[in-house]
């Protein structure tokens, strides 16, 4: 084709393309300010003014009776017997401003629950029996009971919280491994269309779903994945979690390793040759972006204690080749002579798989799991008993920062459920009961604190200004403050005692605290954990 022909034939098209390029280049679809602003919305300012006509809440520390009739006084909490309830708020009367935000009306605040759905549910149940993780109906029953009680006890400024549940389109397990992102998006839109101010899907909250909820301006309380604070802050003012986040977790692990494990023999390992060997550390983490960041932070934290892992292995949580990865990583750890494996992941399944493989390989190192609200799933006796049945020789070498359980029936989550649920209603298993209770408590506390003008921004501001919890609660210490979206502040070091009787269910096998049950603060773990001597765990006095 000659040049002339090309020009003649393609001239209109060329002109069109040039025009398109010019117009499109100079008229961008996204302004730079828009894209950057999207990451900095919701500053959590404490000086928010009320819309005209709205009756303000009473000043902090006001006296009077709460809606449930509790007499307010200094130190009294909204629910007097709860260690986690916020400061007492006397009954309020006036104009609440009506529909102050999506999901909020003059009389209701809607929250949604996405029912747990997974193609791989059967597999999950094969790894974590249903009697440990519960069912959707148990979760809804539990949530309804908690909401019923809290609607009665908390000052909601003329509104009450309404729960709407729906069957999600996304598959939780798929979402956790990267799939079903479009479905997660659709579920978030569904939640939004149901009028959600917040979503309380508990364990059925993947990162994608949470992120999609935030995109829809719906508040979420994720439980099952670990992010660092910076990541949480990117989604302000929509993401909160009972925590701890991975910064806190890393602080606990690094201090434990740096102060009481490094340079000392691995006395808690199972293999005789490892017991006498000075500890060398290996890290295993899940190869998703969040865990990668956490792992990177952990390595940096360990560096401040002059500890470097001798071997690091990562895995992808994909059923197809997970076993092969696990085998390889355990072989790597074993070959590298790792005495202490730091397991830096939060999912409730993989710890058991890794321990099984180690046991099959006759490799019995010390195991140090990451703390979180689910505590690496090690702080719940029923679950740990399950792991112990699969890999008893490994569980007896496990150390995990967490909170030792107390008697289930005396815990406040159980108490609230009993108060709100019908007589014969079945709650979530004891292990999971707290999953529902903690976020609901946080939600109601922040709503009360936010006052009548309830918006995501006032909610966030209120969250940051909640009162720290009383000590020795079932979740340990909760502290609040600016930029804090995960209030978990304290931990104990725990070890698995196969012979101890569990407080939770009276069966054999329980997590026992080290250092006689002493709690440490994440923020001060470096100072609080004894330096230079072995951990006072496994019956040792340190």
């Amino acid at each position, binding site marked *: 084709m000659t040049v002339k022909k090309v020009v003649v*034939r393609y001239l209109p098209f060329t002109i069109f393309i040039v025009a*398109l390029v010019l117009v499109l280049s100079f008229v*961008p*679809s996204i302004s730079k300010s828009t894209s950057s602003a999207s990451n900095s919305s919701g500053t959590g300012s404490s000086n928010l003014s009320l819309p005209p006509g709205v009756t303000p809440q009473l000043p902090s520390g006001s006296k009077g009776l709460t809606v449930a009739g509790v007499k307010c006084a200094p130190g009294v909490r909204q629910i007097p017997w709860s260690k986690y309830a916020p400061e007492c708020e006397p009954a309020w009367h006036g104009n609440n401003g009506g529909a102050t935000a999506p999901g909020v009306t003059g009389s209701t605040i809607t929250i949604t629950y996405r029912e747990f759905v997974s193609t791989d*549910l059967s597999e999950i149940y*094969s790894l974590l029996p249903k009697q440990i993780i519960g069912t959707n109906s148990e979760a809804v029953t539990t949530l309804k009971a908690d909401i019923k009680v809290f609607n009665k006890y908390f000052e909601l400024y003329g509104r009450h919280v309404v729960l709407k549940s729906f069957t999600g389109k996304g598959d939780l397990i798929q979402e956790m491994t*990267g799939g079903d*992102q479009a479905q997660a998006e659709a579920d978030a839109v569904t939640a939004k269309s149901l009028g959600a101010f917040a979503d309380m899907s508990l364990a059925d909250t993947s990162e994608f779903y949470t992120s999609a909820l935030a995109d829809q301006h719906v508040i979420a309380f994720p439980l099952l994945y670990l992010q660092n604070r910076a990541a949480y802050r990117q989604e302000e003012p929509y993401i909160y979690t009972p925590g701890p986040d991975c910064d806190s977790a890393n602080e606990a692990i690094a201090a434990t390793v740096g102060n009481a494990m490094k340079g000392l023999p691995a006395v808690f390992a199972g293999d005789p040759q490892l017991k006498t060997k000075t500890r060398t550390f290996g890290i295993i983490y899940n*190869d998703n972006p969040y865990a990668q960041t956490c792992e990177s932070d952990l390595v940096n934290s360990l560096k401040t204690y002059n500890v470097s892992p001798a071997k690091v*292995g990562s895995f992808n949580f994909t059923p197809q080749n997970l076993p092969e990865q696990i085998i390889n990583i355990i072989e790597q750890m074993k070959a590298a002579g790792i005495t202490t494996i730091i397991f830096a992941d939060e999912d409730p399944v993989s710890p058991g798989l890794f321990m099984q493989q180690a046991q099959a390989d006759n490799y019995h190192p010390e195991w140090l799991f990451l703390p979180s609200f689910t505590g690496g799933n090690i702080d719940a006796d029923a679950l740990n008993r399950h792991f112990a049945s699969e890999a008893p020789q490994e569980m007896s070498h496990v150390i995990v920062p967490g909170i030792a359980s107390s008697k289930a029936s005396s815990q406040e989550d159980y108490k609230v459920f009993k108060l709100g649920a019908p007589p014969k209603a079945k709650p979530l298993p004891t292990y999971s009961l707290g999953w529902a209770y903690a976020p609901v408590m946080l939600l109601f506390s922040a709503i009360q604190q936010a006052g009548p003008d309830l918006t995501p921004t006032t909610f966030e501001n209120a969250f940051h200004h909640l009162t720290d919890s009383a000590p020795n609660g079932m979740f340990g210490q909760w502290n609040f403050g600016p930029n804090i979206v995960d209030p978990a502040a304290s931990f104990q070091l725990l070890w698995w005692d196969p012979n101890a009787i569990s407080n939770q269910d009276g069966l054999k096998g329980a997590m026992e605290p080290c250092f006689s049950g002493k709690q440490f603060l994440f923020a001060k773990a470096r100072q609080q954990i004894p330096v230079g001597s072995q951990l006072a765990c496994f019956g040792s006095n340190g």
Partner: protein
Amino acid sequence: MRARKELILTERTLSYRTLTDRTLTDRKRLASNWGIAAICVVVVWVMAGHFMPGGLPFGISLQGLVYGALNAMTAMGLILIYRSTRIINFAQAEIGGLCASFSVIMVSGSHLTYFEAVPIGLVVGLATGALVDLIFMRRLANAPRLIVTVATIGIAQLLGAIELALPSLYGNGGLSSVSNFHFPSAVSFHLGPVLFKSDEIVVMVVVPIMLVALWWFLGRTDVGIAIRGSADAKDRATLLGIPVKKLSMISWIVAAGLSAVGSILTVPIQGANVGSVVGPEALLLPLAAAVIGGMENLSVAFAASLGLGVFEEAIRWSYPQSQTAAVDVGAFVVILVALLVRRRRRQRADEIELGDVYNVREIRPIPVLAKELFEIKLLRYLVPSIVLALVVFLPLIASDSRILLISDMAIYGIIAVSLVVLTGWAGQISLGQFAFVGVGGATTGALLVHDHLNIFLALIIAGIVGALGAMVIGLPALRFPGLYLAAATLAFAVPVNTYLLSSKYFPTLNPSYIPRPLLVKRFDLNHPLDFYYLCLGVLVVAFYLAYNLRRSRAGRAVVAVRDNDKAASAYGISPLRSKLVAFAVSGALAGAAGGLYVVGLQGIQFGGFDPELSIVVFTMVVVGGLGTPLGAVLGAAYVYGIQYWLHGAWVYLASSTGLLLVLMIIPEGIGSQFYKLRDLVVRQIIKRHDIQSIRGKVVSQLDSDLKVSEATHRAAIRLGALEDLELSAPSAHGVGASEIENPLIKCESITGFYGETQVLFDIDCAVAPGEVVALLGTNGAGKSTLLKVMNGLIVPKSGKVIFAGEDITSWTPQQRAKVGLVTVPGGRGVFPSLTVEENLRLAGWLNRHDKKFIEDSIRKALDLFPSLEKRFATRAGLLSGGEQQMLTIGQAMLCKPKLMLIDELSMGLAPAVVGELLRVVRTLADSGVTVMVVEQSVNVATVISKRALFMERGRIRFSGPTPSLAQQPELLKSVFLRAASKARKARSAVSNGAAVGGHDAGGQDVAGPDKLGKGVAGPDKLGQGVAGPDKLGKGVAGPDKLGKGVAGPDKLGQGVAGPALDEKFSLEVQNVSKSYGGVIAVSDVSISLKEGEILGVIGSNGAGKTTLFDICSGFVVPDRGKVFIDGRDVTNLGPNWRARNGLGRVFQESRIFPSMTVSEALAVAFETHVDVKDPLASMLRLGAVIDSEKVIKDKCQALLEQLGLGRWHDSYVAELSTGTRRILELGCVMAHDPKVLLLDEPSAGIAQRESEALSELLRGIADQTRASMVIIEHDVPLVSSVADHLVCMHLGEIISRGSTAEVLNDPLVVDAYLGRDEETLVSAGPA
């Protein structure tokens, strides 16, 4: 002189290596290859240990071997199914997964022991294999392989649904522990860091045993050979009494067993995935190994699997922090390199495997005449407008979540359209389409977030990146048949997901948050409706682009290449480029869809582009219909809807059953139903109009300067009219059946149908024991159909078939074969991938327990056909046509035939071969075998049979003594007599030097046997009897033309000079030689042609004629020698380049482009005349393209009208009769307008009288185009009447050249080709 030539012939015969020699050489080569491979392995191992960060401890290597061995079980299953059915079984891994799940459940749930649970798992596996065959494969037995391949995806999903539901069905409580599932032995050993326990040791023992057993089974047992043979030619196997269905089931059972063993052995080592789907990733490494093994070679695949296993573990060992990504990337690189280094090998035997494997019938276009009708025009605009209105306005009343749903459907619709382009039109399978979606998504995301680019521009760039990605993958993979692209794309999809689209490795490319843009500061894409309209807009654009592509030259080229890449090349189309264009367009559409996808998700998160999604989108297009974008979009809506509305096992269940039901009930997809409705309406509208007047209007509107000559026009019309004559001939009832007492076989009132078309009408016929009966008739008369009714391949609608007094109407072909009713099919009746030995052995299936009979019969067959003995270990597909026919008859001899039904004995065979075969048939008949031979050649019938049946239009119109046939002028006057006399004249020319050919030649007497051996002219008669110039229309080639371009005259002993240096030739072939593995196909051959000259090439089958054509047209690269076109050296140019330089080619079987319409096929032939070929311009439908297409369209229409093919304008080529296809093909030649035309057996498959018209047509074309022609032809009268001079080839060399008479009189030619048998000479008519 003569003695010297005979000596040369003998020497050339000996130049074929003997079996022993070749076997020794092959063994040496094999040993050498394995030795080199072993050394390479050691070197790689040592280097890996030295250079890899973690080294490569022996323990890790051994562990890799164990894992590789486990994968090899799946790979072997894949190969077995491929070898038996020629499909990739995507359910292979899933079958194993199901078995493993059952075994584990038995241990963990029912507390059985290992030894109790394993057999149960195996039984489940074997039963699954049997059920898959029984329920699905048998129903899809006649479906295209693409459909069957896709069905296995549905089966995988179905099995996945069962796996998912299994724990629930069984009770979840019982599945809490799988740790007890181990081989009960405490034996273990440490090797480096790895502890090898009894489970690994079991693998080390069991897998090699399984491999050897499988190798032995397939290569050494009768069943194994039969499985392979059945895969080659199912009907043929059936006719030999082989229980094809049972064998298919055995294949599936064995393959399932392999997978079951592999998966069960895997469980104690790698754990079980009870309650989960195995997924496509599990197939990656086994498939890679199988691909490296060419889907054929078990040993290579096994070695590859071991290598990949070690490779995988080595990477895991050295890169523990990114092992998954590293392994995935590594596997992809290995597959890509394997493809790059793989040499394209294309042999005659391989071609047989391709055929219409991936052809997909597209939606039939609205007839061009109907488009002129007002109602049709109205419908064409109204229906899309209504649909568009619905999709635009309905969302206004939908909820946000529903709008989001249909937005996603629209995005998936774009992806589906991309697959229609690739799979539906180009016939290529991509199992990694979602990877291109991911690539486009990442590009869009990065551009939006980092560069704040306009979204439209970002989408365009995403499309470009998608196209580039596709081209990178396509370049190595598309050089091979479709399966390799499937493997390459799957291998690509996995690392894209785990590596390229991971923020860990490419954070910039994968922004986790992508804000939805505000379009032109007004349309906020955060609003679901706005985003939906954007998606809809892009879908419409994608639709428009794809539609434009398809109806342009670029689209035609893509489909033409899919249909017949050789023919497409011969018209100047580059197959690779066309496939690349399709893949690039497909990648571009997928990339743009990816841009929308990530904007919809507002970010790119880890693992969001799982390879399984590629399978999902592939399922979508199959469900919707591969042939049409509209159907694909409907499929996308269906499958995505399922995913949206259903959960868990139900998703897989609905998806799989939907897929399988669609495949079994409406394989064209659900979209086709819409078009069926449309066609119904169109037919009704057409009925109400005078279509002829519209036709006249259309023709008058044509704007074409293309004119064919009057002679050509007349010849074409005559050829077409002859076809019509066949269709309109008066019917007559069969006679004679009742006159035969105690017939061996008898047909009573048989009626038969092909689909809805009746092809047999009330047939009565019978054959007496010991009789030789010829069944004659023109094309489409129903001869072969009647034979199929007799042998059981077709069940008659009514009537009876009685054999030896027993009603066998309902008997299967196998049952009939058992009682001695044996068929010798026409054409290729052999199993191409089996050796001659295996073919014969397989033919003795029914008598396989009688070893002595088998040995004796094989010996007898080899004695009858000595050439087969020399090629005993050669794959039958590599034999010449004649040798294949010999082998087919040899096979029949192993079936203890009582009645032998021979279909088209002489089709496409050299006279000498026909003579040889006739002798054998007569020998068989003399031994008491009853013979019924179907023939189109009355000459052959005359010499072999005493009684003949004549069929026309599905009715028997004559039954009686063969000589009496000549006394049926109403039947034969215009059909056989003239041809027979012409054949006689040909023989006469040979013996007496008389003129050859000529329509006015008369003569009635057929040469009798008494003339055997006479009339072979000696050298002294050379040059006599050459037809005068008035008959040929031009100067007759005189002796001065002999030897043009012959470089080796000394070999012929003729001392003919080579071409003068100043002579200009249209085609010049200089001293070309070509060998295939030790066998010389063409040796030192030279020919040359001046403008307008016609050269006939004759020679026995296997003489190298077609290879010579392949060398001329560029399909085969010669080992030595050069090819010039118009003085330009084109030796190193590909076929399409040569076509563009003026070389045309017509192929032997006249298949051209079966799934294209006649008008489109013709348009393909105009390739070199198309002004605008640019696919981008086509997609955009630029003005120049519209003009260019209009010109081609008018030219096509004009040519079709002038050739009398106007009425076939919208018919598919596959629907045409052979004769009409020939006219079309020659029309294509005129469209191509080559300077040099190579015609390979133009008369093959057409009836005798049509052959006469064909010669006129050829001559007309030659006169009109002034093209030089080279014609390969066994129809001596035809080639003699057309060619200026002849060459005769034998064993790869030219043994004679000169005028037709000179060559036909050459004793060497008589010895090597024509034979000295009078009957043979007489029968040298058309096949």
